C-alpha cells in the first residue's frame, strides 16, 4: 500500500477553504477514499447526526501530476479516516507559511508503548512535509488503520448508493430552512415537476407554509407535458399537483435540511439541486460547481452530495401523499 502526492495550490485552497470546513460543521471525522483517479471525502451516518455526505475531488484538482502514486492490493484504492480539525490545522499552517510543494504520504511510525523500554508499536500516519519562507515542516497526522479490503468495498458501496432521484429542483436559497426555525423539529417538503418547492410546518395551533415558485427543474424532460397550474393560493396549487402526481414529498428534520443547505456557504456551488428519491426513501442534494477554467461549463471534477434521511412514516399531521 503506497500513497504519495503533492497538493497543488488549487487543491490546497479547495480543501482548506471549502470542503474541509464544510465537513467539519457536519461531523468530527471523515473517511478518505483515495484512488488513482479521485479522492472521496465521505461522512457516514455515524460520523454526522444522520446525514450522509460525499465530496468527490478529482486528483487533477487536488494534486500535481508529478510524483503521484496510489497503489494497493484492493483495486489501488486506499481508505482510512481522519480527524478533520487536525487535518485542517496542518493545511492551515501550510497556507499560513506560504508553503511550497506540500507533499503528503502514507507512512508507518514507530511509537514506544506506554512504560519505559516496552516494545514499539507501528502507528499509521499521513505525513506532510513542506517548505515555507523560513521554515521546513514535517507533520505527521495520526490516521485510523487503513481499511481492510472488505471495509474498502463497503465504503465504495456506500459512496455509490446515492442513485438519482426522478427529478431535481435548483434551490439557490440557502436561508430557506431558517424561516421555519424553532417552529417544529420536523417539516414537510414537497417538490413539484413545475419547479415549485413547498415547505410546511404543522404545530399545535398554527400551520406554516412557504411556497417558492419558478425554480429550475432538472432534467428538463421532467417538465414535459405538464399542464399549467390553476390554483390561486399556495395550498390550492399544492393540492392540484398532488392530485395529478406531479410532486414528491417527504417529512424530514428541519435541522437536517438547514445543515445541508448551509453546507453550500463555503464551497459556493453554482447549483444546489434537491431531489426526492423514488418512493420518498431519502432526500438527495447535489451541489454542482462551475469550472473555474471555462466560462459557463460545469465542473465534473468537483462535487458534493448529501443524503438526508426522512421520517419513516409520514406523520398523520401532514396527511397522506396525493
Amino acid at each position, binding site marked *: 500500500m503506497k500513497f504519495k502526492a503533492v497538493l497543488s495550490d488549487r487543491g490546497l485552497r479547495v480543501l482548506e477553504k471549502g470542503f474541509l470546513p464544510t465537513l467539519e460543521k457536519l461531523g468530527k471525522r471523515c473517511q478518505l477514499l483515495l484512488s488513482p483517479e479521485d479522492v472521496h471525502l465521505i461522512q457516514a451516518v455515524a460520523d454526522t447526526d444522520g446525514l450522509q455526505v460525499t465530496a468527490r475531488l478529482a486528483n487533477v484538482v487536488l494534486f500535481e501530476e508529478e510524483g503521484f502514486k496510489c497503489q494497493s492490493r484492493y483495486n489501488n484504492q486506499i481508505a482510512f479516516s481522519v480527524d478533520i480539525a487536525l487535518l485542517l490545522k496542518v493545511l492551515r499552517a501550510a497556507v499560513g507559511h506560504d508553503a511550497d510543494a506540500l507533499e503528503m504520504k502514507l507512512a508507518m511510525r514507530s511509537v514506544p508503548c506506554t512504560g519505559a523500554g516496552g516494545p514499539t508499536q507501528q502507528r499509521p500516519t499521513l505525513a506532510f512535509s513542506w517548505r515555507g519562507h523560513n521554515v521546513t515542516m514535517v507533520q505527521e497526522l495520526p490516521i485510523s488503520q487503513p481499511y481492510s479490503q472488505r471495509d474498502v468495498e463497503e465504503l465504495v458501496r456506500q459512496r455509490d448508493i446515492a442513485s438519482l432521484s426522478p427529478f431535481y429542483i435548483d434551490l439557490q436559497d440557502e436561508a430557506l430552512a431558517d*424561516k421555519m426555525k424553532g417552529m417544529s423539529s420536523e417539516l414537510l417538503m414537497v417538490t413539484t415537476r413545475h419547479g415549485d418547492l413547498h415547505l410546511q410546518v404543522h404545530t399545535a395551533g*398554527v400551520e*406554516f407554509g412557504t*411556497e417558492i*415558485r419558478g425554480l429550475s427543474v432538472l432534467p428538463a424532460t421532467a417538465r414535459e407535458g405538464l399542464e399549467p397550474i390553476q390554483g390561486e393560493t399556495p395550498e390550492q396549487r399544492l393540492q392540484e399537483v398532488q392530485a395529478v402526481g406531479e410532486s414528491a414529498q417527504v417529512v424530514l428534520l428541519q435541522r437536517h435540511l438547514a445543515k445541508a443547505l448551509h453546507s453550500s456557504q463555503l464551497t459556493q456551488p453554482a447549483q444546489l439541486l434537491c431531489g426526492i428519491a423514488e418512493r420518498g426513501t431519502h432526500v438527495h442534494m447535489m451541489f454542482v460547481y462551475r469550472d473555474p477554467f471555462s466560462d459557463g461549463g460545469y465542473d465534473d471534477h468537483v462535487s458534493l452530495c448529501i443524503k438526508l434521511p426522512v421520517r419513516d412514516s409520514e406523520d398523520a399531521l401532514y396527511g397522506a401523499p396525493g
Partner: protein
Amino acid sequence: MAQAHATIATVRSLVQALQAIRTHQKLPCAVTFEAAAGLSLRFLDGGHAMQSGISLSTSVFSQFQAPASLTFFVPLSMLLDSINTVASSMPHELHLQYPGPDNSLLLTTTEDASARTSICSYAKVATLAQQDMSSLDDMWDPQEVCSQVILSAIEDLEWTGGEVEFVMRRSPMHFSLQSIKQQSLEITFPAHALDGFSCHTEEVRATFKYKHLKAAFTNVAQKELWSAKIAISSRGVLRVTHMLTLAGGAPLASLEAQPLLGTLTSQAHAPRTCIVKFVVMPYDEKGDAGFGGDDD
C-alpha cells in the same frame, strides 16, 4: 359569516410596531376588524393588572374590507411569531383573512410578481374560543383625564423597588416619578419638556408596578415619528398611548406635513398612524386590583 380581509404593504414597519407589545406568554389576544376603525389587538397582561393594545387605522392598509365589527381570539405569542415568520423574507405585502380554513386566521404574503422566482409564505393560526375581555376604553372615563404629557425619557430607568409612584401637581407645574423602597429615587421632569400638561386637581399620586411600566414604555422600537401621551384617571388608572407613524409604503398625505393639526396629541390622529395603548391598573398592596373577570 362575514369575512374580513386586510392587506398591508408596509410589512417592515408593521413588524417594528408590533415589537412594542412583544411578550413570551401565551395570552389570549382579541383581534378586532372594524370597517370604520381598522384592525386592533388587545390582551390582558401581568395577572390582569394591565391591558395592552395596538390599533392600526384603515389607512395603514392598502386594502381593508370588514363588517362593522368582527372579533375573535388567538394566542398572542403565536400571532406575533406567525407574522414575524411569514414576514421574514420582507415580502411585498401581507394579507390577513378571517375566517380562513378551519375558522383560522390566515396570513399570506405576496412577493414582487416580476421576479423570476417568487416566495409565498402563509400561516394558519387556530383561533381560541370566545373570551370575556372588556374593551380598553371601558375602563376609561375621559372626563377624568388630568394630565397629558409627551415623555421621551422613561425608558432606561432602573428602579430600585418594584413600584413607581407618579406625582403630578398643578401649580407650580410638576411631574415626577418616585420609587420608595430601601433606596429612594426621584426623577423630576423639567416643565418645559412637558407638552400639553393639564391637571384637574391640585395633586395626583398613583403607584404602578415597575414591570408594567417597563412593558408599557420600553418596547416601542421606533423612535422617529413617535409620540407618547400619558394620562391618569381619578381612580389611579394609567393610560399610555404611543402614536407611531408607519414608514414606507404610499407617500403620506400632504395634510399631515402641515402644522395645521397643532400637535400630534390632537385627537384628530393623522392617518397612517398606529396606536399602541397600555392601560395599567394602580398597584394595590391588597392585590385586588384588576380588570373584570379576574380569575387568579
